[in-house]
């Protein structure tokens, strides 16, 4: 099998890791939490990094009037479908082996990824700004939105927001499809050279 096809196939199949590995993680650090609090975000759920973390984040956040972390979200139903569809398309494209399709898949993934990040931002904004007016602790003008990506200080907490293993494999998969596109160009050049000689 051609190298480009192989790259495309492997790249798209890497997306399947998202069903077992976390896509993203938000970690909160404070002196009273020596082992820190963390949320692992999967395409199907949010889960405490340590047992009890979700409840402990909820307990902490209720003092400033934040909602509980959602157990159900429409994204958790939609994302798995999108991922499955893209994996199937990726595999089909891999077998077809046309370089333009490789690029199309990569572009489609990039657009979907951007939409995903925008959606994540909207949720974070809502989570950090929608505060109970009866909250016991209130700081006028203070919002508790975690960073989209990077590190930010929120009151006594340091919040880190970064991709996790599933997220990194997703990026790797996407770049493999881009790689497949370039390798396919090289392969075509080589073939045409061979044909010429």
């Amino acid at each position, binding site marked *: 099998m051609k190298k480009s096809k192989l790259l495309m196939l492997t790249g798209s199949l890497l997306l399947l890791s998202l069903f077992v590995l976390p896509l993203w993680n938000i970690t909160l650090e404070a002196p009273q939490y020596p*082992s820190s609090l963390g949320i692992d975000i999967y395409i199907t759920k949010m889960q405490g990094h340590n047992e009890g973390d979700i*409840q402990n984040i909820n307990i902490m956040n209720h003092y400033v009037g934040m909602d509980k972390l959602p157990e159900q979200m429409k994204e958790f139903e939609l994302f798995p479908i999108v991922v499955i569809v893209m994996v199937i398309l990726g595999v089909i494209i891999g077998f077809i082996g046309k370089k333009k399709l490789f690029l199309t898949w990569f572009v489609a993934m990039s657009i979907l990824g951007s939409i995903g990040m925008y959606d994540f931002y909207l949720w974070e904004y809502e989570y950090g700004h929608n505060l109970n007016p009866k909250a016991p602790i209130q700081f006028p003008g203070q919002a508790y939105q975690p960073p989209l990506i990077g590190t930010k200080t929120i009151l006594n907490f340091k919040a880190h927001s970064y991709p996790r293993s599933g997220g990194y494999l997703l990026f790797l998969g996407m770049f493999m499809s881009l790689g497949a596109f370039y390798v396919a160009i090289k392969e075509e050049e080589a073939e045409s050279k061979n044909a010429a000689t």
Partner: protein
Amino acid sequence: MKLSFKSFLILLMFGLSLAIVSCQQGSGNSALKSSTAEKVFVAPGEYDEFYAFVSGGFSGQLAVYGLPSGRLFKIIPVFSVDGEKAWGFNEETKPMLETSYGFIPWDDSHHPDISQTNGVLDGRWVFINGNNTPRIARIDLTTFETVEIIELPNSAGNHSSPYVTDNTEYVIAGTRFGVPVPQRDISINDYKGNFKGALSFIKIDQETGGMDLSFQILMPGFDYDKAHPGRGKSDGWMFFTTYNVEEANTLLEINASQRDKDFIAAVNWKKAEEYIKAGKFRTMKTKYAHNVYNDETHSATSTMKTEVRILDPGNLPGLVYFLPMPKSPHGCDVDPSGEYIVGSGKLSANVTVHSFPKMMKAIKEKKFDGESYGIPILKFEDVLAGVVEQPGLGPLHTEFDGKGNAYTSFFISSEVVKWKLGTWEVIDRKPTYYSVGHVMIPGGNSQKPFGKYLLAMNKITKDRFLPTGPEVTQSAQLYDITGDKMELLLDFPTVGEPHYAAGIPADLIKAKSKKFFKLDENKHPYATKSQDDVKVVRDGKDVHIYMTTIRSHFAPDNIEGVKVGDRVYFHVTNIEQDYDVPHGIAMIGANTSELLIMPGQTETFVWEPKEVGVWPFYCTDFCSALHQEMQGYVRVSPRNSKIKLSWSLDGE
């Protein structure tokens, strides 16, 4: 004039430089002290190298310290009620202090001993004796809580206990007092021959740690003072020191000190197992409590047992031998190899050491020097390994460093003496402040001592600390024993009498220490696992409140419909699932203590309101920023009131 001013300046400079030199000399001394200080300094946030479980003596509890710092971490309630932790006050732990005499809120806890595997500390459990109402407790080292207490029938003054065998097959407990067995109304003057001393063998379940009184050996009515299991080559034997072989029943300080030699009783417990298997026991009716705490129901149960198997050593050859030991021996210690049995005749000027191989040889050759109540007595000279000549006054207890050295405490001359096994020469002596009882080296009574520190536990402190009225603190002292000479590092105060201790490297325990109880695994019959499930239920005059706590509120926190004369049970579940977030609760006028509830745990206290009114309760453990807001009310109406039970949180 000028000149003399100059010379004055010079003189002044000279004087100053002298002062500086002498200051430097002064700081030179304190530098020496600061190097000692460094040896016990554990920097903020760092951990101690060893845990020390130090008994509380007449406090009835067990305290956990760090070594070398001497910092106190926790007091584990064992035999005495503890209002701080609601031990013996909440409904769940009351059964732990049940005995055949009913509920007893106190005891005298003496000898902690850590479980072993192959003669090496394994950090599973600590066992400790209750002296006054004979009991043995087991503390689980994942929760650092007392999880089991078993009472010992036919025993009185449960002092020579508890001691674990090489593989924790048995925890063994001897009686200090001879008593009539079974108890009956006879003249005290009929002591001789009629009073007995029971040696109890408690079988340990290796999976659960569960204790079962397997059998008792009914010995003559001597006082069985201290004990030590054989180690390694002497595994299978148990050694007890005795005093009062005179069998005196009055003015023992004179009448029990008449004989030149008392005995060490050598008990072959493997033989005892054979006799039990062969059915050579008699079953005796008796009564003793067996109390077990369950970490899933967070509750204890107390069961009254009614039978015990008895072995009579006079009729069972090979079960027990007596080894003569000078002058009312107290300490009985076996070295890590299992070869030497060290007896400390507390009225003797010498420390006498017997040899296990010589004992076996004498038994084999049947070289007996008469018998006592059918138990063969071996000849002193035949079993003697050696004598440490005149090491001090009033030898009590010996521990070992695993490098061939023994360390014996001397009560009267108030010192610790280091001597060499085999050559019996004294290597070093250091004073204690004052009148040391036990000494402890982590693992120092096992096959594998961790011979870095020795802890001396004193009986008297006098002027060592700031005075606190007639009752002054008790104390322990830490010595560095890594060099040829011992070095005193630290004095630290202790809670209650630090009678004896058991030390263990922290690495063998700390990773296993539980952080919190899982709410999913809570099987308490009155557990409330979610705030949605809270309720108040009336059952006649009993009112059961199913309550939850989480930062920073109780649910429910407003309750109405309680009446004067009700018995109100607060069943409170801490539904937190985070490390170190306990909640407490206390109710005005409740004739009991607060509760201190760990995450995932349910505890219950009872309140019997006596007057109408609206009565508050609040959280006693500073749990969060809004801890002070964590409070609630119960409305109490007259007995004939028609007000229905109702409960709410935030109006819901």
